[in-house]
């Protein structure tokens, strides 16, 4: 699997797995995600309810807490943005 972010490969792997598990995407499909792959608005599986499930599952697996006022369109715009956000929470 291609590692896009130096030092955050564990977080990146977790984000890929959560997207696959919650949205029911194939492993091949999420393995092909790059930093620029668009998510919200581009993946029909990722509706607003699924966003809530993805974020809550990320919290559980990474042991992080995401405040509701931190959730915006930007962090979900691309795969890279979501990994950066999750890494910022998990690696501090």
């Amino acid at each position, binding site marked *: 699997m291609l590692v896009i972010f130096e030092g955050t490969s564990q977080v990146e792997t977790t984000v890929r797995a959560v997207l696959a598990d*919650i949205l029911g995407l194939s492993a091949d499909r999420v393995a092909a995600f790059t930093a620029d792959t668009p998510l919200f608005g581009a993946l029909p599986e990722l509706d*607003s*309810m*699924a966003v*809530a499930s993805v974020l*809550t*599952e990320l919290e*559980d697996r990474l042991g992080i807490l995401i405040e509701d006022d931190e959730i915006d369109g930007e962090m979900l715009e691309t795969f890279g943005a979501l990994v950066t956000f999750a890494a910022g929470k998990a690696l501090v």
Partner: protein
Amino acid sequence: MTGLRFQHYDWAGGREAMLRFGPDAGPIALAALPLFEEANRTRQFACTILRALAERGIGSVLPDFPGTGESLVATADATLSDQRQAYSALAQQLGADIYALSIRSGALLEGDATLAGRWHLSPQSGEELVRDLERARAAAGRAEGDYAGNRLSSERIAALREAVPRGDGRCRIIRLDTDPRAADATYPGVPLWRRSEPDNNIELAQKLAADIAHWIAA
């Protein structure tokens, strides 16, 4: 008679339906699905576990509680207290050798029921449940009190928020191997309760049925 039966049970506030699997004699697993949306995502999976338990000679029930499934009580009118009363009444009617098989927030319904043991799959506290509900509500842009179509009063939310699964007595906690929290055992699998489209996992259901059967027999 070990095929699937449709039965009912009575509690102080009325009558609710239940599915019954496996033998009537011996230990009985009392299954409780998660509350609200997660119930729809786990019902088929729970039935697969109960069928696998029946194949191992263990009987089980999958009841509705007030405000869930085919209940005549509207979701908005159901209270956690009523659901716990119904759970306790059912446990008492089933007999002495009753084991809770609770999935996620289903563990919150056990309350003060007399049980021989508690088996919890990825148990969720009321506080975590309310957090999930609030987040889903906000994400869907719903009005306050409207949780994915469920109208829940502020009193109900407050009661749920304070509820915690009981861990006393004979208790076994199972989690998926992706969940870092403490557990007695973990198994590989995806969290079906959070899937956007309902799914099943027959292999995991069979492993969990084996886990439950060994635990009851131990």
